[in-house]
């Protein structure tokens, strides 16, 4: 057992380290390169630039030359303090397993890999077409509605529904034009007319049951239909137009698809770069 331990390189290393420690402790001095902070003008100028997050050597050189003796001493003091604290932190291993530092370095790497140059890319109509077809769901145009309505407040005990139904008994009311209809019914909190609005938009102002009922209506443009219920009450609807939900034609949204395609190529390019790097690693998984 002891024999095995004496052959272990780690033990040799620890022993050597201990001896060195004893030596420096006894000799009373910390020599060694890692304990020397070397400062020249170059170092200080670099320090100044990183502190300021601006990089122009000449400007900082001039600034440095203008420093008073006290200012120079202060700069030196700051530099020494930062460098000493940094090295002590590294010695204590504080840079290890720190995910903030790790993430920051990874970000730097990603930034380096992100060197896609759009101006070098030529996009053929065929490749654009292929991309469009693969991602067609993104270019879906939902149904749009154009209508006017006469509104009756919900009220209690179906009062709104009763008033709404009674209102349309009259032949005169059935023949009201949109403009003529304006004085009738109750005040609606939003609008009397809606032009080319999607069901999403309408849902936020009327609620789901309303848009579902609207979807089943025929766009006659003349007849008042209903009454249908919303979150607020009852509505007579004059639906003049309802577009069918469809995918937008490529020709109509060429520039949009092109921009999306470029973004896609850029992402692909970056991913390929990352894959290339990963290929050089052997991954050992122990779950």
């Amino acid at each position, binding site marked *: 057992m002891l024999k095995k331990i004496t052959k272990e390189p780690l033990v040799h290393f620890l022993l050597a380290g201990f001896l060195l420690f004893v030596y420096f402790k006894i000799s009373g001095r910390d020599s060694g390169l890692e304990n020397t902070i070397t400062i020249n003008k170059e170092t200080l100028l670099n320090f100044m630039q990183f502190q300021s997050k601006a990089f*122009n050597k000449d400007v900082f050189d001039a600034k440095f030359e203008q420093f008073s003796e006290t200012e120079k001493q202060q700069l030196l003091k700051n530099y020494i303090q930062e460098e000493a604290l940094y090295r002590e932190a590294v010695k204590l291993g504080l840079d290890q397993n720190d995910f903030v530092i790790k993430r920051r370095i990874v970000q730097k790497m990603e930034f380096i890999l992100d060197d896609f140059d759009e101006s070098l890319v030529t996009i053929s109509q065929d490749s654009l077409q292929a991309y469009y077809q693969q991602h067609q769901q993104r270019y879906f145009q939902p149904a749009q509605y154009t209508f006017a309505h006469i509104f009756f407040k919900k009220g209690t005990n179906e009062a709104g529904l009763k008033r709404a139904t009674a209102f349309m008994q009259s032949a005169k009311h059935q023949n009201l034009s949109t403009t003529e209809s304006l004085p009738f019914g109750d005040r609606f909190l939003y609008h009397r007319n809606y032009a080319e609005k999607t069901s999403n938009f309408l849902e936020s102002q009327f609620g789901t049951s309303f848009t579902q009922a609207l979807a089943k209506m025929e766009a006659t443009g003349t007849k008042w239909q209903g009454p249908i219920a919303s979150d607020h009450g009852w509505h007579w609807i004059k639906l003049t137009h309802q577009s069918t939900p469809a995918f937008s034609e490529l020709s109509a949204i060429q520039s949009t698809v092109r921009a999306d395609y470029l973004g896609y190529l850029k992402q692909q390019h970056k991913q390929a770069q990352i894959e290339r790097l990963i290929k050089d690693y052997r991954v050992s998984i122990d779950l």
Partner: protein
Amino acid sequence: MGFFNTFILEYLSSKQNQFLHQNDMQNQLFYCLFISILLFSCSTDKTITTPVEDPTTSAKEAKAAVTKNPNKNLYWGDTHIHTNFSSDAFLFGTIMATPDDAFRFAKGEVMTYPPTGEKIKINRPLDFLVVTDHAEGLGTMLKARDKASFLMATEAGRRLAKIVEGKPGIPMFLKWLRAKNLGETGLTEIDTGKVMQTIWEEHNQYADDHNQPGKFSAFIGWEWTSTLNGNNLHRVLFTPQGAKAANQFQPYSATHSSNPEDLWNWLEETTKKYEVDLVSIPHNSNVSGGLMFPDEKDSKGNQIDVSYAKTRAKWEPIVEMTQIKGTSEAHPALSPNDEFAAFELWDILLKSTGGNTAARTTPRRADFVRYALQDGLKLEESLGTNPYKFGMIGSSDTHTALSSVEEDNFTGKNLIDGGAVDKSTPWINDVKNLDFSSSGYAAVWAESNTRRDIYDAFIRKEVYGTTGSRIQLRVFGGWDFEQKDVEQADFVTTGYQKGVPMGSDLNNAAGKKLRLMIHAAKDAEGGNLDRIQVVKSWLVDGKTQEKIYNVAWAGDRALDKAGKLAPLESTVDVKNATYTNTVGEVELAKVWEDPDFDAAQRAVYYVRVLEIPTPRYSTIASAKLGRDPWAGAEPVIQERAYSSPIWYTPVK
């Protein structure tokens, strides 16, 4: 330009105690560039004249038959957007975001947010948009990077191309700065000649391409970026006409002059000469250092007179009073009785203190719209005409090309601070990204969604501003409204028949008291309404007064003796950034009579509508990151809408 080097050195050294962070670099760049742009000064005006046949309407607009609603429809938009045609936006990383992107995003298309690569989309599309890039150096960074031949044909362009080689960032910026300080960039030359013409025409084409009468109005505009000693005098300008008309002139910039009086002179000449219409909209009066709404001297030190008042009122009928860099309604120090005045304030000037802190302004009356409206009454009393007869809107001023000031979908000031990211990062010095406000939008009551109808609504001031929420607000002023009028299905027709809409004048009291008919509905996808307030300002013996009336509110609260209303209970769960609409009303409607009306006193009224408390965008971001809100910003806000005013002038 010696000042400039000093400034940069001071500024850069003031940053010494901060950790290296790419975002900071971009922010810092932004700041420096912004300042530098504003420092050009030259007084040449070389507009290029090209005769055209039809300068008034674009052919597309003339052909389209658009249905008009005489009772007006409500349209939402943003009149203040920057893209990569703005030099500051470009140098800070808004490299790929073109005016085309700005329009596409506003129309509701899915885009990629460059810093994160995430897909983003506005929750609800806008109805109109004005792309207002800085006129100073318009598009030149972009064209120099692409080595555009028309730019490379000039000596100045070739120099600029060398400067902007590679990735934007500090070194490029400093290269550009040094060249500029040495007078090597020739920016004055390329800002006014053929280069500007080519870029301006391209910029205008984007708007023409995206304009769809009846569906979406895409306007041609720009920003006049005048800053006097760090004090903001910026204006955005736009025209209802198309590229054909706009290409006749070149945008007036701070390169030409930094004095608003010169801008108005140019507007007078240009609109006559080319038969175009233009409107100028001041913004960020909050950081104008007391220069935006003066009541004694103009920007050149001349006494304000009748001509100043008339000219200003003519060209500047609208003020953008809320945006990402704060709300300029009023200040708590100047309106101590207004418990809602401390809302999204901003006080950062565009200059350096030389230290570690940003230069901040102290609030002055001339910095806020409420006091400008008051001083307008005072000036009218002495001059017979009111220079500050303006309507009010909000807009974003985003430099991302992506206009979304939706609290849960804020795209940010720069392409840095949008989305669920650490908002406590510094913008500059002790200013954090979370100090920005996710605000605002312009709401317009217009007959149809065309350039002309929307522009006309701006001119007659039938517009209002919100802090990003889509609160619907209608205000009519008159003498004979009854409460039952606003309960009618068709109260709007009554409003126009018996009174005047927001932005208008009343004068013949005939023994009656002034009444306002007000209707507000909640944002269909937002928080319920807390209350409607009327902010009245008036003049007694030459002195301005103000009073805030609570006129309609949710819940069974009662006014106290001072007319105050207890705050509504907040439903916000700060940790999860949620709220419920269990308090508040979906709709508030009221005919209000001014109990203190005096027919002998000049007065101006505007309506302020408050939502229930909801989580601020920074709180939504912190919740997404699973942490508590960052210190330094209110976690909860009350979104609001501000109507354009109604004025009462006694008949003498």
